[in-house]
C-alpha cells in the first residue's frame, strides 16, 4: 500500500475535468489525485466515461473545462485498449520503432530492457501478428513504458485476454507498481479491480461518485454484501441517476 496522500506529491491530478460532445456531457467536474506507486482502477458501467477520462489524462483528448496536472519533464505512458502495434513487424521492430519515435537516447538499450521485462526475448523476431493476444498486450504495455514514465495509463488492458493471460499481465503490471510506477487503469471487471487495485474510482454517467479502497466501497454500501461485485452493483443502484 502507498503512504498516505497527505505526505506525498501526486503523480497525476485531475482538476474539475469536464468533457462535452455536442450536447452530451461525458465527464462532469471530475477531480482526483494519484500518487507514486499507486494502482488505481477506474470502474463504472458501460458509457460511464472511463475511456474519455483516461484519454484526457493521457493527453489524447483535451477537456472542455478543467485541467490535468503532472510533474514537468516526465511523460505519462499510455496503453490503448486494443494493442496499437504493427502486426507485420516483429516484436523487436515494433519496440525499436516506438523507441526511435520517442527520441530515446539509446533506443537499442530500451528495446533490450523491454524484451527482458516482457519475457519475450525468445520471440523478439516473430511477427506480432503471430503472437497470442496476451503477448501482444504485453508488447502494447511495454511500448507505453519505453519512455520510463512516472505514470502509466491503461484502457481496459485485459478485456480481450483469457484468464491465464490476464493473470500473467497483472503480474507484470503489479511488478511495475512495485518499482514505483503509478498505474491507473479502466476496467469493467470489478473483480479485477478488487484484486489488483489499491484504490477504485467509481464513475457513473460522467460523475465521480466514489474514491477509496475496495473495502471502503463495500463499507459505503451499508448492509453486508455477498462480495465486492454485489457491493458495486448496489452502490450504482443507490447513487446512480
Amino acid at each position, binding site marked *: 500500500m502507498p503512504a498516505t496522500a497527505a505526505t506525498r506529491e501526486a503523480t497525476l491530478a485531475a482538476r474539475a475535468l469536464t468533457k462535452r460532445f455536442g450536447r452530451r456531457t461525458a465527464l462532469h467536474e471530475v477531480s482526483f489525485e494519484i500518487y507514486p506507486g499507486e494502482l488505481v482502477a477506474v470502474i463504472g458501467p458501460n458509457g460511464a466515461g472511463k475511456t474519455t477520462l483516461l484519454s484526457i489524462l*493521457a*493527453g*489524447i483528448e483535451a477537456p472542455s473545462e478543467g485541467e490535468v496536472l503532472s510533474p514537468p519533464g516526465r*511523460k505519462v505512458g*499510455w496503453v*490503448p485498449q*486494443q*494493442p*496499437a*502495434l*504493427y*502486426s*507485420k*513487424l516483429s516484436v523487436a*521492430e515494433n519496440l525499436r*520503432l*516506438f523507441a*526511435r*519515435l*520517442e527520441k530515446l537516447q539509446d533506443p537499442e538499450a530500451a528495446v533490450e530492457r523491454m524484451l527482458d521485462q516482457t519475457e519475450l526475448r525468445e520471440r523478439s523476431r516473430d*511477427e506480432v501478428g503471430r503472437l497470442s493476444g496476451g503477448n501482444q498486450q504485453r508488447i502494447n504495455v511495454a*511500448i507505453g513504458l519505453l519512455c520510463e514514465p512516472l505514470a502509466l495509463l491503461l484502457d481496459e488492458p485485459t478485456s480481450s485476454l483469457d484468464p491465464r493471460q490476464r493473470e500473467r499481465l497483472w503480474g507484470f503490471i503489479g511488478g511495475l507498481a512495485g518499482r514505483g510506477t503509478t498505474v491507473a487503469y479502466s476496467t469493467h471487471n470489478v473483480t479485477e479491480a478488487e484484486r489488483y487495485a489499491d484504490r477504485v474510482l467509481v464513475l457513473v454517467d460522467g460523475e465521480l461518485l466514489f474514491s477509496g479502497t475496495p473495502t471502503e466501497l463495500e463499507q459505503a454500501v451499508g448492509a453486508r454484501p455477498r462480495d465486492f461485485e454485489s457491493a458495486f452493483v448496489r452502490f450504482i443502484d443507490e447513487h446512480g441517476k
Partner: protein
Amino acid sequence: MRWLLVKDLQILRRSPLLVALLIIYPITLALMIGFALSSPPGKPKVAFLTEVPKGQGRIHLGSQQINISSYAKDLYSSIQPIIVHSQAEALEAVRSGRALAALIIPADIPEQIQSLVTTGVGSPTVQLILNTRDPVEKQFADEAIQARLNDVEQAVSKQVLRVAVVDLQQVLNGGSIQFLGQTFPLLGLRNSRTLLRSAISALPARSPLRAELGRVVGFADLAIQGLAFASPVLGSIGTPLTVDQTELSGRTTPTATYAATIAVIFSLMLVTLLLAAGMLALEWEEHAFARLVRGLVSPGALLAEKVALAGGLAAAASLLMAAGVSTFVPLQWSRFPLWVVALVLAGTAFAALGVAIGGLAREVRAASLLAFMLSLPVAFVALVPAAAVSGGLKSVLDTVAFVFPFKPALDAVNNAFSDTAPAIGLPLLHLAALAVAFGLLARVALKRVA
C-alpha cells in the same frame, strides 16, 4: 518521419500482394500496351478458290485489257490464303474453323465483267462465306476482304473510263483501231469537218449541196464542242473527289505515345491512390494512429510521410513502366529529367488525394474501394473528347476534370514524353495546387477524427 517511412517499407516488404500490385501490375500493363500498340493486327485466314482457268482472267476493253488475277496478289497481302480446290473444300474449311471465311471467284467472272462494261448487261459476283460464330472475327475478315474487292471494283471502273476517254479522243481527232488482228484508220470528227469545208469551198456557188454539207459541218462543230467537254468530265469520274488537305502547324502527339501516356498515368493513379489511402487507413486498423499522434508524430508529418511513400514508390514504378513502354513506343529520352519531375509531381498530387480518402475512410478495405470507385470516373471524365458531348455537359466534365489530378497529370507527362502541346509549366502548377488542396482536405479529415 524517417522511421515511419522505414516502418512502412518494412510492412510493404512483408506484403507480397501489395508488392505485386506495385511492380508486376504496372510492368504487365506496360508490356500489354506495348505489344498492342506495336503489333499490327494479324491477317485473317481465308479459304480461297478461283474457278477461273489459268490464262483466262483477262478482260478486253477496246485496245486495253485488265488481268483480274493480278488483283489476287493484292488480296493475298491482306489475308492468309488457304488455297482450296472446290466449293465443298472451301465450306469445310470455314465450318471446321480452319478459315474465318471463304472467297470463291466463279469461272465466268471475266465474261460477266466484260459483258457489263461493253453492253451494260451482266452481274459479276464473287461468293464470300463468313463464319458468324465470333462477330468480331467475322467483321475482321469481312473488312479485310471487302477492302480488296473494292480495289478491284475501282480498278475496273477506272480502266473502263480510261478506255472510253481514249475512244472518245479517237472519235474527235481520228487515229486507228485494231479489229480481227488488222489495223484500220479512223478519220475523226475534226478531220471530217476539215474535209467537208474543203469540199464545200470546191462546189459551185449555186450548188444545192452547199447548204446540205453546211448543216453537216454545223453538226460536226457542235459535236466537237460537246465531246471536247465530255473528255475531261469522263476523266474526272475515275477520281471523283480531290481532297485539298491542309495541316496546321501545331505539334501533335503520336497516337501510340498518347496511349502509352494514358496507360502510365492510369497505372500511377491506381497505385498511388491505393497505397496512400491504404497505408494511412492501416494506422487506424492497427490502432496505432492515436498512439502516434499523441506527441510522437504530428498529423501533418504523418500525412507527409504517406504522401512521400506513395508518391515516391508510384513515381518510381511509373518510370519503370515508361522505360518498358519506350521499347515499343517512341518516347523522348532526352527529356528524362522532365519525366521525373512530371511523374513525381503527379504522384504527389494523387498521393494527397489518396491520404484524403484514407483519412475519410479510416479502414483499408473501405479506403481501397473508395479509391477504385473514384479513380475510374475521374479518368473517364478526363478522357471524354470535347466534341463528344454538348456544351453544358462539357463544362461540367471540364470542372470535374479540373479538380482531380488525372487531366493535368496527363498533360504534364504527355509533354514530358513527347514535347507536345500544352506546355508543361501550367499542368505542373495545377498538380502542385491540387496536392496542397487535397493535403489540406486530409488534414481536416484527421482533425475531425482527433
